[in-house]
C-alpha cells in the first residue's frame, strides 16, 4: 500500500491547517500584538516612564524575590520528590504522584484562601502568630507561600520522565565502583537530567512570575509593598493608566516569550542528549 492511500485528501489537510492557523492567530498572536501595540502606541518615552514609578519598581522587585525563593524551594523539593518516585518502590507511591498535581488542579483563588484560613488573624494558627507579632498573610511570607504552592509541580513533573527513562544502570555502576551516593548523584544523576531540570526551572519561574489569583488573595494590595507585577497591572488598568498598564503587561509578556524560547532550546538539547544516549551502545 502506498503512503498516499492512507493520507487524508488534500482539501481536508488544507482545511485543518487553516482552522488551526486561524485559531492560533485569534487566540495567541492577536492578544500578543495587542499588548505591545497598546504599550507602545503613545511612544517610547511614555512606555519607559511606566517603569520609573516607584510602585512599579517595588512590584517588579517583589515579583522577582517571590519567584526566586519559590523556584529555589521547588527545585530542591522537585529533585527530592522525583528521585523518590523514580528510584524507590513503596506503599502510597501512586497517591504521592497524584498529590504532586494538586496545584495544577486547584483553582489559585482557593489556594490563596487556604493560606488565609490557616494563617489569617481568624485562622487556625492566627492567634498564635498574632501573639508573637509574626505576619504571614498580607506580607512577604504569604506571597512567597502562595507563589511556591502554584509553581510546585513543574520541576518534579519535568524531570520525573527523564529519570524514569534513564534507568539505574549508570548509577549502579558508579556505586559498585565505590562512589558514595552523594557523589553518584552529583556526577551521574544530575548531569543526566540537567536539561530536563533547567526546563522545569524555566517553567516554574514563568508560572511564579505570572501568578495572579492566589497572590491576589493573600496580598492585601498595599501599594509599593505587597503588590506583585501582575497585581500592579490590574491596578494601573483600573486607574485608567492604560499605557502604563500595558507597558507592565508587555514586560510580563516578554518574560513569557523568553521562557518559550528557552524551553524550545532546552527541548532540542534533551532530544539531542537522548539520541546520543541511544547511539553509545551500538
Amino acid at each position, binding site marked *: 500500500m502506498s503512503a498516499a492511500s492512507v493520507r487524508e485528501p488534500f482539501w481536508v489537510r488544507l482545511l485543518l491547517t487553516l482552522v488551526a492557523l486561524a485559531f492560533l492567530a485569534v487566540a495567541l498572536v492577536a492578544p500578543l500584538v495587542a499588548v505591545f501595540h497598546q504599550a507602545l502606541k503613545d511612544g517610547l518615552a511614555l512606555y519607559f516612564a511606566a517603569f520609573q514609578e516607584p510602585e512599579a519598581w517595588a512590584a517588579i522587585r517583589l515579583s522577582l524575590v517571590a519567584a526566586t525563593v519559590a523556584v529555589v524551594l521547588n527545585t530542591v523539593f522537585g529533585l527530592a520528590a522525583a528521585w523518590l518516585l523514580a528510584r524507590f518502590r513503596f506503599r502510597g507511591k501512586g497517591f504521592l504522584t497524584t498529590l504532586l498535581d494538586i496545584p495544577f488542579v486547584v483553582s489559585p483563588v482557593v489556594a490563596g484562601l487556604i493560606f488565609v484560613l490557616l*494563617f489569617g488573624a481568624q485562622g487556625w494558627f492566627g492567634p498564635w502568630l498574632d501573639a508573637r507579632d509574626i505576619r504571614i*498573610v*498580607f506580607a512577604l511570607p504569604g506571597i512567597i507561600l502562595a507563589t511556591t504552592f502554584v509553581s510546585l509541580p513543574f520541576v518534579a513533573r519535568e524531570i520525573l520522565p527523564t529519570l524514569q527513562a534513564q534507568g539505574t544502570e549508570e548509577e549502579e555502576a558508579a556505586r559498585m565502583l565505590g562512589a558514595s551516593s552523594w557523589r553518584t548523584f552529583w556526577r551521574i544523576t544530575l548531569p543526566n537530567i540537567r536539561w530536563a531540570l533547567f526546563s522545569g526551572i524555566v517553567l516554574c519561574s514563568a508560572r511564579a512570575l505570572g501568578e495572579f489569583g492566589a497572590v491576589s488573595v493573600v496580598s492585601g*494590595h*498595599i*501599594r509599593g509593598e505587597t503588590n506583585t507585577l501582575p497585581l500592579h497591572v490590574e491596578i494601573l488598568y483600573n486607574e485608567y493608566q492604560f499605557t502604563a498598564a500595558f507597558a507592565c503587561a508587555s514586560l510580563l509578556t516578554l518574560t513569557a516569550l523568553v521562557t518559550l524560547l528557552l524551553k524550545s532550546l532546552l527541548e532540542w538539547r534533551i532530544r539531542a542528549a537522548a539520541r546520543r544516549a541511544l547511539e553509545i551502545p551500538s
Partner: protein
Amino acid sequence: MKRFALTALAATLSLGLFAGSPKKLLNVSYDPTRELYQDINQVFTRQHKARSGVDLAISQSHGGSGKQARSVLDGLQADVVTLALAYDIDALAEKGRLLPADWQKRLPYNSTPFTSTIVFLVRKGNPKGIKDWNDLIKPGVSVITPNPKTSGGARWNYLAAWGYALRANHGDPSKARAYVQELFRHVPVLDSGARGATTTFVERGLGDVLLAWENEAFLAEKELGKDKFQIVAPSVSILAEPPVAVVDRNVQRHGTAAEAKAYLDFLYTKEAQAIGAKHYYRPREASVAKAYAKSFPKLNLFTIDEVFGGWQKAQKTHFTDGGVFDQIYQPR
C-alpha cells in the same frame, strides 16, 4: 567578648531600625478613593514633616469595601480604615474587636468627612432616554452595578433604588421589592467592586447605564472624555456616608495612635475638604461646600437612617445570606 560584640551589633541594628526609620500608616480604603487619598496623603505627610520633623509614609490599599473589611479582620495591618459604609467598620468592631463599638461617635458628622450619592452614567446623547429610576426597568435597558455582597457602592445603589421605589409607591414595601427585583433582571453582570463595574461599562462597553458613586461617575467622565459619557442625576437618591476610623488594636501595636488620629482629623480641615471636592466628594465643611456647590447636581437626598433605620437593620434585611437580595436575584 564575641557575645558582647553580637549584642552591640544587635542593639545598633535595632536602634537603626526603630529610631531612625520613618513612621508608617496603612490606610485600607474602598475602591474609588485611590486618587483622592493619593493627593491627601501627599499634603498631609508634608505638613506632618514640617510640624514634627518626623517622616511619615502612608500606604494605601484599595478594593471592594466588604472585601477590604474582611482582609482587615483576617489580619491586614490597617492603621486607619476609610470604607464605603458604616456596616463594614461595625464588622471590625463586632467580629474582630479591633475598635470599640461606638467608633462612629468619635469624629464629627458620623465619622464621615465627605459624603456622596448615587447617580447614573449614560453613553453620550443618552440614546435610551434615561432620566430617572423608572427608566431603568424599561424593556431593552441594560444596567451595570457591582455585587452588593462584596461592594459598598453596590449596596448604596441598591438602597437608593429601593428608597426611590418606596417614595414612588407611597411607602409600599412589596412594590419597592418588585421594582428592585425587576431592576436586577436588567443587570447582565455583577462585578465585585465599584471600579470593576466602571471599567465594565466604559472600557468593555457593556450596558446602557451605570449606577455609580457620584465621584466615580465624574472621574470616568473626566478621564475618558465628556464626548463619550454624560451624568444623569435622578429625581431622588440616597445620601451616601462613607466613614473613617482609627483601628485601635493595630495602632496600639504599631505605636501610631497619634499619627492615625491626626491623619483622620486632617480630613476635616478646609484644605482636605477642598481636595475632596476637587475629586467630586461632597464636602461637609460649610464654606468649602458653598465654594464648590456648583460642581454638584442638586438632588433630593434621603438618608439610610430615615428610610431603612440604619445600616445594621438594612444589612440584616437585605444583604445577609438568604436576605431580600438573595431572594430576588437569580444569576443568569
